[in-house]
């Protein structure tokens, strides 16, 4: 496989009406990295993530996935490209009319190459991977707790054996215990499946425990893109309040103690 970066953003400009959100963003994520995208509220983190998935298109600039422009090639090639990444949406975005097993099996069924028996075994495996009991398979999304919704959504994102996993606020709305367990789960899956991960987060615990690199989105561009240690030393008001505030220091100390 080629060594092209998994994600490459070049000169991304986004505008919402007269509001300029991104002004020339460049970012490249190499295979196997776990990149955390952080930034203040309204700095366009989720928008940038949506550009990467192709849900929105930037006003200018180019998004490349796996070394090819996102919207290049025939419809078939574009669909094949979309199957190489999995997305965990902020609120899970489970299909509320389908039960847990059907939700996880849905992308597999849509491929039309996997037999029902194989789907059943693969769904059981994904459920086990995200540490859920087999008995949850028949529950409907409305019957799940917040943490379980995230786990099912993660299992669904992993259904097509993606190489790239995009997480939008993976721990938002979870209590600290569950949040820590979920982060641990993502980390072990990342190591086991050799995933490249891009996550948008507000939560410094998540960031400290998970990411190998941190991209800071501020002032409409990528302010810095470096390892956690290097980022910590950066002299910028956002970095100062985000990382070196009381919470930040404690969280980083916690994760250092653990590893």
């Amino acid at each position, binding site marked *: 496989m080629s060594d092209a970066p998994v994600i490459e953003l070049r000169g991304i400009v986004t505008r919402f009406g007269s509001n300029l959100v991104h002004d020339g963003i460049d970012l490249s994520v190499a295979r196997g990295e776990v990149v955390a995208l952080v930034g203040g509220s309204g700095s366009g983190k989720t928008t940038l993530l949506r550009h990467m998935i192709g849900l929105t298109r930037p006003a200018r600039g180019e998004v490349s996935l796996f070394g090819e422009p996102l919207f290049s090639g025939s419809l078939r090639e574009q669909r094949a490209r979309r199957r190489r990444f999995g997305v965990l949406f902020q609120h899970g975005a489970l299909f509320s*009319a389908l039960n847990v097993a059907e939700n996880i099996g849905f992308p597999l069924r849509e491929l039309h190459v996997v037999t029902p028996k*194989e789907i059943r075994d*693969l769904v059981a495996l994904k459920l*086990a991977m995200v540490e859920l009991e087999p008995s949850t398979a028949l529950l409907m999304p409305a019957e799940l707790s917040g943490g379980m919704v995230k786990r099912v959504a993660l299992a669904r994102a992993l259904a097509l054996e993606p190489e790239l996993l995009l997480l939008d606020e993976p721990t938002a709305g979870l209590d600290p215990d569950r949040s820590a367990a979920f982060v641990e789960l993502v980390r072990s899956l990342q190591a086991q499946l050799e995933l490249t991960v891009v996550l948008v987060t507000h939560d410094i615990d998540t960031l400290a425990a998970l990411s190998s690199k941190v991209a800071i989105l501020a002032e409409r561009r990528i302010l810095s893109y470096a390892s956690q240690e290097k980022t910590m030393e950066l002299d910028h008001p956002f970095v100062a309040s985000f990382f070196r505030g009381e919470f930040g220091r404690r969280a980083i100390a916690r994760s250092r103690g653990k590893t």
Partner: protein
Amino acid sequence: MRAPTASCGLSAGSGARPECRLEGDWTLRALAPRADEFRRLLARAGQGASWKLDGVTRLDSFGATLLWHAWREQWPEDLSADDELRAVIGRIAATAAEPLPEARAFTLTDAIVVLGAALLGFANHLAGFVRLAGQLCLDIAYLLRHPGDWPLREISANFYKVGAKATPVAALVGFLIGVVLSYLSALQLRAFGADIYIVNILGLGIVRELGPVLVSVLVAGRSGSAMTAQLGVMRVTEELDALSAMGISRTVRLVLPKVVALTVAMPLLVLWTSAVALFGGMVSAWVQLDLGFGFFLDTLPRVVPVANLYIGLAKGAVFGLSIALVACHFGLRVRPNTESLSTNTTASVVSAITVVILIDAVFAIATRSIGVPG
């Protein structure tokens, strides 16, 4: 990505045992185009073969599942693979051993239960509907004693939404129906030389019957569905719960304004639509039968007693009341999932139209001796 390959066959060295040699990437993406072919090939070799997996560069859980099923869920005796590959297959083996619970199959007993549930469900709907209507009566009694609590802004906003904004489409439909009705009647009447009876037919038909029913069908589709969907989405997004938590009655704040607005707006819409439909009929009569506008307008009040207009407006009010009640009833029954939302919205529109036609039949019987000649 290296294309996956599999070669199975008898090799000279391994005695009678066929040998299967797998190479390349055994991943979902690589296998997908030729999954059936590999599935057959592996199944033919079966668990008894000698399996050489050393050439496999990547194996994901789909590839592992394919192998595991080909081996009929047992480890082959003769398997050459490194620990990493064994671990991937082992994970599938472990979870396949304890299968997921199956959804229960549909049996005859279930069919009886479904039938019974439908009947009980109907009774349940009836009870819920009566409860909603009763709650509204209590709310109105409360509001009469506390006039300051009337949700006037909501009523006004709903009135604008269901009434004022419906006028263009109501006018369009009314006009066209008027033209068509008049045209078809004119053809028949001319054969008998009874041209001037067109005024009677159009007047009675539109003012008493067609106007109210036409508007009801339109409003049930337009505003009834919107009301159900709005309440349903508010359930999905927990807005209903937020209201309850603030101690605000959902019937006063959400249901009552809709019901009041539609009950008041419908007679006006009926009046408007009937007028436009009559105008359409008048235009058509003028073109077809050369009947002047002045003559038409002059004859209309003489041949159509004014009681018909009152009946039409009363029907409009009652239809509006029932459409809004039915819509809100179904809207509040939505459970927080998309399937329930679509089921209830459909049920709301279908029930509203059915109820309107039933009530119309009751009206027809109750008013059979009022406002008709003879």
